[in-house]
C-alpha cells in the first residue's frame, strides 16, 4: 500500500545511527546521573571543603590552605602516611608474588583443582569485618589466642602481634593479603589460560627449559593481567580500612597509631572529631596519591 511508505508523523526521520545513539544514551543516562550525584559531585566538593573549616553544624568558613598546613605539620599525619605506604610497598609485591605462584602451580594440577581454587577464593567472598574479628582472636595472647597457645604448648615465647608497635602492622597486612589472594589467583589463572598453547608447544619442540618458558613466554604475555592486578591491589592496600578498623577497635589504629592507615584517619577526623574540612584535605591527599600511583604504574608497565 502506498500509505506505508510515508511516516505517520511529520517529524523528520532520524537515521539508524542517531536513533541507536539516542537509545544508548537513554540507557546510560541513569547511571551517569546517578554517578554524577553520588560520586562526581561529592568528589569535586571535597576539594572545595578542604579549604574550609566545617564541623557539620556551622556554615563552612573559608580558611585557605590552613587545613593542609596543619596536616603537613602534624607528626600523626606523617606516621599515618608511612603506615599507608608500608601496606602498599610490602603488601602489593608479596600478594602478587604469592598469587602468581599459587596460580602457576594450581594451573598445572588436575587433582583437586576446583576444590583448591574454591578454597583460595573463599576468603575473598567472606565479609571483611567477620574475618577481621576471627583473626583478632587468632592473634590474642594465650590462653585465648590459637597461635600463641600453640607457641606456648611447644615451649616457645609469646608474640604480641596486635599489641606490639613492631608487629601489629605486619599482622594486619597478612590478613589483608590472605583476603585478597583468591581474587588475584583467579585473575592470574584466567591470564595463564588465555596464553595460546601453540607458543608452549613450539618452545617445547625447540627444547626450551621450564624456567626459560616462564621468563620468555608466560611473564611477558601475562603483562596486561599483571598491570591490572598491580593497580587493583595497590589501590586496595592504599584504601585499607576494614581489617584495621575491626582488628583494633580497642585502640583504633593500633598501639600508638602504628597500624593506622590514611582512610581510618580520615574516618576519625570526619566522624569522631567532625572536622570535615580537615578530613576533606586528607581525602584530597589520598586521591592525589591514588591517582599518581595508578598513573605511575600504568606508565612503568606500559607496552613499549
Amino acid at each position, binding site marked *: 500500500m502506498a500509505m506505508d511508505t510515508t511516516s505517520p508523523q511529520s517529524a523528520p526521520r532520524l537515521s539508524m545511527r542517531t536513533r541507536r545513539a539516542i537509545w544508548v544514551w537513554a540507557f546510560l543516562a541513569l547511571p551517569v546521573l546517578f554517578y554524577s550525584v553520588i560520586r562526581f559531585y561529592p568528589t569535586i566538593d571535597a576539594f572545595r571543603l578542604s579549604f574550609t573549616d566545617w564541623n557539620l*553544624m556551622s556554615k563552612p568558613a573559608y580558611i585557605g590552605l590552613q587545613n593542609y598546613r596543619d596536616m603537613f605539620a602534624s607528626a600523626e599525619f606523617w606516621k599515618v602516611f608511612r603506615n599507608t605506604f608500608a601496606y602498599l610497598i610490602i603488601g602489593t609485591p608479596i600478594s602478587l608474588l604469592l598469587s602468581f605462584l599459587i596460580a602457576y602451580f594450581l594451573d598445572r594440577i588436575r587433582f583437586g583443582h576446583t576444590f583448591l581454587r574454591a578454597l583460595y577464593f573463599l576468603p575473598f567472598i567472606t565479609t571483611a569485618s567477620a574475618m577481621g574479628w576471627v583473626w583478632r582472636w587468632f592473634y590474642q*595472647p594465650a590462653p*585465648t589466642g590459637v597461635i600463641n597457645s600453640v607457641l606456648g604448648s611447644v615451649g616457645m615465647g609469646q608474640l604480641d602481634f596486635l599489641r606490639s608497635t613492631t608487629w601489629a602492622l605486619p599482622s594486619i597486612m597478612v590478613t589483608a593479603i590472605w583476603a585478597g589472594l583468591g581474587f588475584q589467583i583467579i585473575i592470574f589463572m584466567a591470564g595463564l589460560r588465555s596464553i595460546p598453547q601453540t607458543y608452549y608447544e613450539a618452545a617445547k619442540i625447540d627444547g626450551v627449559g621450564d624456567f626459560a618458558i616462564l621468563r620468555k613466554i608466560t611473564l611477558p604475555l601475562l603483562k596486561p593481567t599483571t598491570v591490572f592486578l598491580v593497580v587493583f591491589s595497590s589501590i586496595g592496600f592504599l584504601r585499607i580500612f576494614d581489617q584495621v578498623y575491626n582488628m583494633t577497635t580497642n585502640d583504633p589504629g593500633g598501639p600508638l597509631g602504628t597500624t593506622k592507615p590514611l582512610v581510618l584517619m580520615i574516618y576519625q577526623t570526619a566522624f569522631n572529631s567532625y572536622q570535615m574540612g580537615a578530613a576533606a584535605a586528607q581525602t584530597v591527599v589520598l586521591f592525589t596519591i591514588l591517582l599518581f600511583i595508578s598513573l605511575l604504574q600504568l606508565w612503568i608497565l606500559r607496552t613499549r
Partner: protein
Amino acid sequence: MKRFTKTALLAGTIMASATAASAVDIEYLQYIYDTRVEAVDQLIAKFEEANPDINVKQVTFPYADYQTRVVAANMAGNGPDVLQMFYGWTDSFVNGGVLQPLPKDMFPAEQIEADFFPIVTAMKRGDDYYGLPTAVRSLALFYNKALFAEAGIEGPPETLDQLVDYASQMAVKDSGGNYTTVGLTVEMGGQDHQWWREVLVRQFGGAPYSDDYSTVTYNDAAGVAATQWYTDLTTKHEVGYTGFMDEGQAAFRAGRAAMTIDGTFRLGSFRDIADFEWAVAELPANADGLRSNYASYFANGIGAKSEGEELEAAAKFLAYLSSPEAMQLWLEVVGELPARPEVALTEANLADPIYAPFLKGLEYAHTTTFVEEQAQRQVAMDMANRVFLQGQSVEESVAEAAAAEQAIIDRAR
C-alpha cells in the same frame, strides 16, 4: 437548608479544632539499646495516657552514627523535638544550633540544682540549662567472689595499697610466664582512663584540669605519681596487662580477672554470668581515705527547631522524662541510677549490694567536661602505651599527653 449548613459548619469547626488539639506530634530521638528503647516505649505510653493531646514518636539510630544522624537531621531541618545526648556533646550541640535552652519558667535553675545530683551542672551554659538526665552512671570495682575465696581474701580492697596487694596475690601465670588470670584488668581504653583522670590523679594530690576544664593540670608531681602507680600495676606488680583476653570486661566475664573497674552500664552484661558469683565495691580510697569517682550521663534536651505547641509538648515530655516516676521506671528496666537523690538514695537502693557502691560514688563524683571524649581517651591510652611498649619514662609520657590533650581542648574552644 440554611440551618443544616450552619450545623454542618459548626460540626466541622468542632471536629477540626478537636483534631488540631489532638494532633501535636513530637519526635523523640535516642540510640538503639534494647532496654533503653523499651523503657522509653513504656514512658511514652504512660505520658500519652496522661496527655491525650500529645503523640510522641520514638525514633532510634545505632549508637555508632547517632551523633552524625542527629546533626544531619538538624541540618536538613528535620531536627527532633526532644533528643537524648551524652553530656559531653553539649558544647558542640549548643554551638552547632542543635539544642535550645530549656524554658526557664518550667525548669528554673535553682529548682534543678536543688533536685538533681550536682553533676547536672555539666548541662549548664551561662544561666541556661540545655538538658536534664533521667539516669546517671558511676564507676565501681567489680570483683570475682570465687577467686577471692580461692585466694583466702575476705572482702574487696578498701585502699589502693590493698588493691595492689590483693591483685598481685590473685594474678596467675603458667610455666611459660603467661598470665592465665589477672588480678586487676589494666586497660586505659576501657574505663581506666576515667579512673586515672578523675580518681587517681586526685588521690595522689593533684587535679586533672582547671575548674572550668579548659586547662590540663595533671602534668605535675601528683599526675606523674598517679601515672607511675597505674603503670606499675603492669610493669612492677605484674597484676595484669592491656590486651589480656582482648578486653578487660571479656576477661572478667570469663572468670579470668579477679577485679575490674567498670560502670553501671556494665551491670546488664555481667548479670548473665552464670559460672561464678561477683560483687561490687566502692572504688578504693587512698591512704588518707580520700575517694573520688567519675560520673556521667545521657541527658534529654530540646531540639532547636521545636517551636509553638510542639515546643510546649516537648517541654512537658522532657519534664516527664526527668520526673521521679520515670527515674524509678528507668532503674527497673535499664538498671541505671536515678538522677535525683530523692529517688536514688532510698533505703531500698542503699541496701542493695549492687546499687549501693555506685550510689556512694555519686556523692563525691566528678564529671569531666570533655570536648571530644574519644580523642581525649586516646591521649590517655597512648600515654600508658608509651610507657608499656616503648619504655618511655612516666614523666615524659605524662608531659607529652598533657600537651596533646591541651591541643585538643584549645582546638575545640
